[in-house]
């Protein structure tokens, strides 16, 4: 398997994902909303994907905005 280049951020609901997307965009962190990869979670719905190098800035931005996130996974 090739070196992971993305981090996906799992969130409790679609509304949380939309809120997270708004927070990351406001912080200038490129991101994309994608369906949750099945190897990561059997939950339905969408998650947020950011570049691997943006993992910590994304975490900081979400925590600063008090957006609850459930997990971050490289893929």
């Amino acid at each position, binding site marked *: 398997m090739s070196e992971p280049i993305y981090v996906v951020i799992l969130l409790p*609901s*679609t*509304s949380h994902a*939309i809120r997270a997307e708004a927070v990351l965009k406001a912080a200038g962190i490129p991101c994309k*909303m994608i369906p*949750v990869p099945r190897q990561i979670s059997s939950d339905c*719905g969408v998650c947020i994907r950011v570049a691997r190098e943006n993992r910590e800035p994304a975490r900081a931005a979400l925590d600063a905005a008090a957006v609850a996130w459930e997990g971050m996974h490289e893929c």
Partner: protein
Amino acid sequence: MIYFDNAATTWPKPPGVSTAMVRFMEEVGSNLGRAGHRLAVEAGRIVYAARQAIANLFHVGDPMRVVFGANVTEALNLALHSLLRPGELVITSSVEHNSVMRLLRALEARGVEVTVVACSPEGMLDPAQVEAAIRRHTPMIVLTHASNVVGTLLLVAEVGRIAGRHGLLFLVDAAQTAGAFPLDEVMLTQRLIDSLLAIGGVRVYGGRVAARQMATVSFRTDGMPPDEIGLRLDEEYGILCRVGLHCSPAAHRTIGSFPAGTVRFGLGAMNTADEVDAALAAVERLAGGTP
């Protein structure tokens, strides 16, 4: 046709409402929170935007704390049935709509105690009486923001501070007030109250100052019962209002109009001064017994 039943539900709906509904049906129509395709995400965005708009309206900091229900009655059921336990004491007012009062009576049958604080005949609630009713086993105060019969605003901010001081939950039934901007309608309401008072044989219930209430006015005439006034306003004048007890028998007992009830004019943002004047002329004719 003149629509004066805005206290039940507003009409006409702003055009944006039907536009948004049709757009959803025709262009989105998807479930949110399951699939990850673009329509599911678009449905999620619409709901999130609604969440945010509602949070802004109610000054809620976190839009995730907004919980949707099918309507206010369902939301009140959810809150009261899930938060109150047998042996607890809940406090409310004597001008509540049946969507609160009947629930509390049902809960009473299951062992929840209910204290109903009496309002004045104008529908005013004394917050000090609410505070005096609090006991050790009181977890919640539930209050309507405004009487759906006479439009009187209850002092929810003050009662909210009391609830906060005592660490209680505070449930507000905002069916009459949320999203309504009484300032726009104060002038029309005052015109309606003043002119009704000037008509002989008409009794106006509730307050006299439009700035202190919603655009809802209840009245009765000496010569004709409310249901007949309502029928004749509809059939002869095209004026649609609501008569009787308005699902709030307790409020009618409070203001002294039980059991016959009142004629209720519920004005809305879409009503005009001409409509109010036309309605006043109709009431004057009916009150005077003119055929």
